[in-house]
């Protein structure tokens, strides 16, 4: 199995994640889609690291994980407060940001 297969896997995962973000209404699910996209990226980065024989990609992956962890905290907090205020977890109900 060549390393390119990992890239394909990463692309598929990323696409699934993007579709989830674009199509699902539940905020938690959307959030999971975002995580899926992030991890697909991580996979791609690690694979590239192996392909080029350098550590840069792995370092990036670690960075992404740290930032993703922080993002999860903030994101979940926002979701919680929205749910408290509006009694809903649907992204389409929070559409105040328009004219």
């Amino acid at each position: 199995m060549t390393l390119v297969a990992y890239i394909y896997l990463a692309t598929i995962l990323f696409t699934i994640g993007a579709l989830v973000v674009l199509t699902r209404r539940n905020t938690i699910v959307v959030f999971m889609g975002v995580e899926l996209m992030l991890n697909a990226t991580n996979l791609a980065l690690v694979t590239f690291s192996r392909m080029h024989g350098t550590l840069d990609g792995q370092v990036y992956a670690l960075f992404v994980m740290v930032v993703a962890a922080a993002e999860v905290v903030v994101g979940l907090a926002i979701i919680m407060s929205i749910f408290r205020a509006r009694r809903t977890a649907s992204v389409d109900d929070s559409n105040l940001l328009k004219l």
Partner: protein
Amino acid sequence: MSVFETSAGIALTETHSVTATAADGFASLGWLMIALPLLGAAVLLIGGKATNSWGPMFATIMSWAAFAVGLGVIFQMTGLAAEERSLSVQLWEWVSAGDLSVNVGLLLDPLSMVFVMLITFVGSLIHVYSLGYMEHDPDKRRFFAYLNLFIAAMLILVLADSYLVLFVGWEGVGLASYLLIGFWNWNPAYATAANKAFVVNRIGDLGLITAMAILFATVGALDYATVNESASSMSQGALLAVGLLLLLGACGKSAQFPLQSWLGDAMAGPTPVSALIHAATMVTAGVYLIARSQAIYIETPDARVVVAVVGAITLVYGAIVGCAKDDIKKALAASTMSQIGYMMLAVGLGPIGYTFAIFHLVTHGFFKAGMFLGAGSVMHGMKNRVDMRRFGGLSRVMKVTWITFMMGWLAILGVPPFAGFYSKDKIIETAFVGEGWQPWVFGFTALIGAGITAFYMSRLFFMTFQGKARWEDDQHPHESPKSMTVPMIILAVGSVSLGFILGPTGILENWLEPVFGHPEHHEPVLAIPLIIALTLTLVALGALLAYFMYWKSEVATEAPEGTAITKAARRDLLQDDFNEVFLRKPGEGMVTMLVATDRDLIEGGMVGKTTGSLAGLSDLLRRTQNGFVRSYAMTMLAGIVVILGAVWVMQ
């Protein structure tokens, strides 16, 4: 470039040229003539109510002081040889812009001094008269301030040594005239009359400004000396244009056809104003302008003929209007218009006419101012009524006014030996000089004009002073106070004597010779005694007709219906209607059209459509701001895909 260095000169004929020399001695104080009345106006206007008690007297003294300075300058001039009587007083450099350099300077020469004498003498007399006439007016301080302002501006006009400085005075008298016509501006009709005079004058001013622009473009300077010198080297087209544009300016200021409509309405001003500005001095500025620009008109006979034609038209026009007016001041205004027409005709005839035009201008200044003051005196005694149909028989109660007015009346009729006989008949004789159709047309126009003048002036005189009294019941006419009658007497003496003092003796002709040169003598196409006889016959006929119509027979207190011509003449020969139909209405139509174009095409079409389409476009874009996070995410994704795709394609 200084005027000192240019050999000035009013080159008239090739053998004739005068150089302006720097003034020394008393003449170098010539600027005082302008400064004194200007100071008077400033003190009265800035001093405000504090000067109420002594202001009018102060203004009168300032005016007489200007006269005294002028007299001093004349005395100094008489001591000089005729060719040296052109003095220049340089004051300061005014405009220095690129090639154009204009110094403020005064030109004291025989022509301008004649005007100075007329303006300051008649002006000062009218100041004195106003002391009586305006005695009870609450605003008389302002009135005297404006009068002084006028004297100063008029002196700038005649003493200027360049067209640009002349223009300052030109506008100054326009301003003073506007302020004084509208002096009683609580009456909307008077304020409108002032506006009308101002607006019509602007049309003339446009001509003068354009003429100056052409002069600057072709000659490169605006002082008389340079312009006179280079007039002969200008192209015919430029000369004709300058000549006609100067004439337009003159028409505006002097109420000549076709810009004469304002003068009748200008009678809304207090009567001393009508006498000073709208009879004796300001309205003759046009004649001065053309006489001063003789170097240009000598080179362009076509423009000169137009000047003469304008003069001829106006002299008949004014005379016809004068026959129909029942308002004593408006009849006199029409007469002024007509008499200035004579002067215009004379200056249009070329070198042979200049001296006579100035001569008539001086005598007219006296007798017309005298008659206006007489009319003012009548109004003073008749509770400001102006309708001659309600006068009559005033000779019994206003002896001084009657006699002085009679002197003016005889003078304007041209009865020998009164002033008008010498000045007006000279113009009529000169009009008969020439070749081809011109002497016949101009000559007979002037001749017939004299007959009509005799008729309407006699009509005015008889209706006012003779016949039965047709006063309204509440009238108790009385003679005016001394301050009013004395100036009238002095002007009447001038109306009687100026003609034979200045005319046959050759005093004025010799005095003006350094400016106008000595024209060759031309024989009129008719014998001179025949012309004089014809003129006097027509004058006698006109006066007799008026005698039978307005003295012997009853004058109706209500104006009869009259023929179509009478009706037209009462409405200034439909001048205002003509302006209304052919100028104001089309002008209004044009403005309405422009407004519509602006509103519909510019504002509604170009600007409106642009903003409309932008608004529509932004409306579309706004729809994308739907607040759905998912659609934003889609946009971001699409954007990134596009960018990546672009990068991929480029690589």
